[in-house]
C-alpha cells in the first residue's frame, strides 16, 4: 500500500447551493403528475354522454371503430354492439363527445350510412372504402335530451335544416315514383317525394312531397301536379306528341307541377295542402269542371276516331272538348245513335270590335270595358235556327283522329228539326264529310245509270268507220309526198354530218388549248424523268451528294 504522505489532497470545490440539484429534481415527478392529471381531466371533461341506438341489423358497425358523424364531423364512437333482448334487433352503444350533447334531443335521427342507391342518387360511396358510419341529424326539438334512440333503416330524405314546405298529393297510382323521386318545376328539380302511403280504403295513395325554398312560394292553391315519369307519348287530334321531363325522371320517375297563368291569386299555399296528382300534363292543365258547360251532340254516323278529350272547335277555334262518347238506341228511327257529351269552356268570350252605337251586343259588360260576347251564347236556339250544327271532321288522316266542329251551315238554315231532344243544351248534328262523300257518290252513280250506253256504242261504231276511211286517204297522200321529201332531207343530214366532223377536227389539233396542254404534259414528264434520274443517281452513289460524281473509267467497259 502506498504511503499516506504521497496521496495528494483533493481540492475543495466551492459549495453550491443544494437547492438547484437535489430539490429541483422533484419538479420532474411533479410535472409528470401534472401532465397525467391534466390528460385525465381533459379526457373526463370532453367525454360526452353514452347513447344507445336500436337498429334492425348491425351490418357495417364495428365496436371501437365505427364513428358517429354529423356533417362529417366525428362526434362519437361505437363502443359496443349487442343483440337486443327480444332478438329482433341490435343495440349499439356509442360514446359521444361533449359537444354532441345539444344534438341529442327527442327528434334526433340516427341511421347507418352505407353506399346506397335511392331516389336517383348514389350516396355514401366513400363508405365502401372507409367503412360505414352512423349519421346523425340533430333534432330541432329543444326539449329534454334523450339517450335511447331508434335508428332509421334508410337515411332521411331531408336534413332537418332544409327549409321548404310539405304538401300532400292524392294519386290513383304510384307509377314509378318512390321515396326520393324528384319534383320538377319547368324541368328544374325543386324538391322530392318524402313518403308514400296507401289510403286505408285502398283506392288512392297519398304522397308526401317536399318543395324546397324558395320554390315553395310558387305553389299556390291552383297549382297542378302531374306524373312526369317516363315518356309521355300521346296521339291526339294534333298529331303524335312525345314529352319527357328529364332523363332522371325517365329512370326514377318524377312529379312536375305548374301553376296555370289564368289562376288569379298568387298567394303561396300553406304547408300540408292537398292536391290531386294527374296522370299527364295535358290532363293536369285541363280546366276544372266548374268552368265548363255540358252540351250533347248526337251523331248518326260512325264516331270512329273520336276520342275523349278531342277538341271541339268553332271554325278552328277551340271552345271545348269531348267528355264522353255514348251509344243509344233510338226506337223512333230504329237506329243506333251516338250522343257525344261536349264540355264547352265557360269563360271563353269573343271581344266585340268597337263600333259607333252597338247596343245589341249581348252580355256587354259595364261601359268602359270592351264589349265581350261569351261563346256559350253562340250555342243557342237562335244559332241553331240559323244553321249551327255540330259535325265530325277528320283532324289527322294518318291516325284517323276526328274532332267535333261546330259551324254554321247556311244550306241548313231554317231546316225543320223534329227530333231535337228536350235538353236545352243540345246541338243538332249534320252528316260528316264521309257521309257527304257517300251521298255524292250515290248521286253520281245514279246519273251514270241514266246514260244510254247502247246508243252511244252504235254511234261510236259509225264514227270509227268513217275515221278509218279518212286515215286511208291520208296514207296515200303521205306516200306521194315521201318520194319528194326524203332525198332533200338526206342531203340536209349529210351536210350536217360533214359540218360536225369539220368542227371536231378543228377542235382536235392545232388549237392553242390542246397545244398548251400537251406542252405542259411534256414538261411535266420531263421533270418527272429528271427527278427519277436524280433519285437513281443518289441511290447508286449517295456519297455523290458530298463528294460529287466519281470519275468514269477512261475506256468503255467490255
Amino acid at each position, binding site marked *: 500500500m502506498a504511503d499516506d504522505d504521497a496521496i495528494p489532497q483533493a481540492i475543495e470545490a466551492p459549495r453550491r447551493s443544494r437547492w438547484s440539484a437535489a430539490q429541483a429534481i422533484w419538479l420532474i415527478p411533479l410535472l409528470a403528475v401534472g401532465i397525467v392529471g391534466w390528460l385525465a381531466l381533459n379526457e373526463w371533461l370532453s367525454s360526452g354522454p353514452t347513447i344507445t341506438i336500436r337498429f334492425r341489423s348491425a351490418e357495417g358497425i364495428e365496436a371501437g371503430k365505427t364513428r358517429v358523424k354529423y356533417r362529417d364531423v366525428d362526434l362519437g364512437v361505437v363502443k359496443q354492439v349487442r343483440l337486443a333482448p327480444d332478438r329482433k334487433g341490435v343495440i349499439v352503444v356509442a360514446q359521444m363527445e361533449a359537444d354532441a350533447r345539444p344534438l341529442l334531443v327527442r327528434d334526433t335521427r340516427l341511421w347507418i350510412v352505407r353506399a346506397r342507391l335511392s331516389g336517383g342518387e348514389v350516396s355514401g360511396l366513400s363508405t365502401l372504402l372507409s367503412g360505414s358510419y352512423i349519421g346523425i341529424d340533430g333534432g330541432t326539438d329543444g326539449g329534454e335530451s334523450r339517450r335511447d334512440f331508434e335508428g332509421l333503416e334508410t337515411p332521411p330524405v331531408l336534413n332537418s335544416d332544409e327549409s321548404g314546405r310539405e304538401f300532400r298529393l292524392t294519386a290513383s297510382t304510384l307509377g314509378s315514383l318512390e321515396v326520393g323521386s324528384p319534383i320538377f318545376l319547368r324541368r328544374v328539380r325543386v324538391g322530392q317525394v318524402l313518403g308514400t302511403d296507401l289510403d286505408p280504403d285502398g283506392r288512392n295513395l297519398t304522397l308526401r312531397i317536399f318543395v324546397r325554398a324558395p320554390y315553395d312560394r310558387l305553389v299556390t292553391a291552383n297549382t297542378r301536379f302531374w306524373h312526369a315519369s317516363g315518356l309521355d307519348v300521346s296521339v291526339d287530334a294534333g298529331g303524335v306528341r312525345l314529352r319527357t321531363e328529364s332523363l332522371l325522371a325517365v329512370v326514377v320517375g318524377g312529379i312536375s307541377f305548374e301553376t296555370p297563368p289564368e289562376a288569379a291569386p298568387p298567394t303561396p299555399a300553406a304547408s300540408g295542402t292537398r292536391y290531386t296528382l294527374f296522370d299527364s300534363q295535358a290532363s293536369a292543365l285541363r280546366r276544372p269542371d266548374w268552368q265548363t258547360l255540358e252540351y250533347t251532340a248526337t251523331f248518326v254516323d260512325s264516331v270512329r276516331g273520336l276520342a275523349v278529350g278531342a277538341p271541339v272547335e268553332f271554325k278552328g277555334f277551340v271552345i271545348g272538348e269531348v267528355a264522353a262518347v255514348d251509344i243509344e238506341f233510338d226506337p223512333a228511327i230504329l237506329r243506333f245513335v251516338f250522343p257525344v257529351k261536349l264540355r264547352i269552356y265557360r269563360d271563353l268570350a269573343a271581344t266585340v270590335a268597337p263600333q259607333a252605337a252597338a247596343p245589341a251586343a249581348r252580355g256587354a259588360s259595364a261601359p268602359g270595358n270592351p264589349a265581350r260576347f261569351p261563346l256559350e251564347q253562340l250555342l243557342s236556339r237562335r244559332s241553331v235556327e240559323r244553321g249551327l250544327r255540330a259535325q265530325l271532321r277528320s283532324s289527322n288522316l294518318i291516325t284517323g283522329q276526328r274532332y267535333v266542329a261546330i259551324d254554321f251551315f247556311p244550306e241548313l238554315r231554317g231546316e225543320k228539326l223534329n227530333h231535337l231532344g228536350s235538353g236545352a243544351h243540345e246541338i243538332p248534328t249534320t252528316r260528316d264529310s264521309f257521309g257527304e262523300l257517300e251521298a255524292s257518290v250515290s248521286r253520281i252513280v245514279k246519273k251514270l245509270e241514266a246514260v244510254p250506253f247502247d246508243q252511244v256504242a252504235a254511234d261510236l261504231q259509225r264514227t270509227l268507220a268513217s275515221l278509218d276511211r279518212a286515215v286511208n286517204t291520208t296514207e296515200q297522200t303521205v306516200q306521194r309526198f315521201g318520194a319528194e321529201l326524203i332525198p332533200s332531207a338526206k342531203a340536209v343530214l349529210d351536210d350536217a354530218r360533214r359540218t360536225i366532223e369539220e368542227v371536231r377536227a378543228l377542235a*382536235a*389539233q392545232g388549237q392553242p388549248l390542246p397545244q398548251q396542254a*400537251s406542252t405542259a404534259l411534256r414538261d411535266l414528264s420531263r421533270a418527272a424523268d429528271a427527278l427519277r*434520274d436524280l433519285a437513281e443517281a443518289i441511290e447508286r452513289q449517295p456519297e455523290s451528294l*458530298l*463528294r460529287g460524281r466519281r470519275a*468514269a473509267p477512261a475506256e*468503255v*467497259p467490255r
Partner: protein
Amino acid sequence: MKRLRPGRAGITRLGIGLGLAVALAGCATDTPPTRWHNLVAAVPGAPAAVPSGARTLAVGPVSVPDEVDRPQLVVRTARGAPVRLDGERWSEPVKAQLPRALALALAARLPATVVAAHDGVLVLPSARLIVEVQRFELQRDPDRAVLRAVWTLRPGAAKEGGPAVPAQVFETVVAAAGPDPTALVAAMTAAVDQLSGRISQSVCAAGPC
C-alpha cells in the same frame, strides 16, 4: 467550379465548324468532265431543200424503251449486262431525240412532204407515222448498235387522205467504228437513218412523196 455545358454560342460554333468541314470535303474532289452526245448529227454544208408539196407527215407517237431513255449512255457488255456511262450523256432525252431525228431524216428523203414531229404544226396531216422501238442498244465485242422497231403509217385527218402502210418490222445492226462513245453514237444515228430509209421507201411506194 464551373460546369461545362455547351451554351447557345457553343452549339452555333459547332454547327458552323461541321458545315465548313462538309463543304470542304465536298470541294476536295473534282467533278469529272461530262461529254454530251446527240443522235442528230451536226448538219454539214447547206441545209436540205425545202419541200413544196401539200402532203404532210406527222411523226409520232414514238415509243422508246425506258432502259435507253436515260441521261447517260447505256452500253451492254459482252456478257449482256447493261452499263451506264456516267461521263457520257445525251444532250436531250432519247424520247425527244428519236422523233426529231426520224423527222429530219425523212424530210431529207421525202422532198414533197412536210414532216413534223410535234402535233402542233400539222393540223390535219395526210399521214401519221407511229413507231414502237423495241430495241435500241449499244453492244461491245463487237462494237455495234442494234435497232429493232415496229412501225405503221396511217392516213391522217386530211381530206384527201394519205398513204397507209400496215405494221412493219424493221431490224438492223450497224457496226461501230470504234469502242469510244462517239463512234457508238454514230452507229446509232446510222441505224436511225436506215429506218427512215425503209419508211420513205414505203411512203413513196404508196403515193406521191
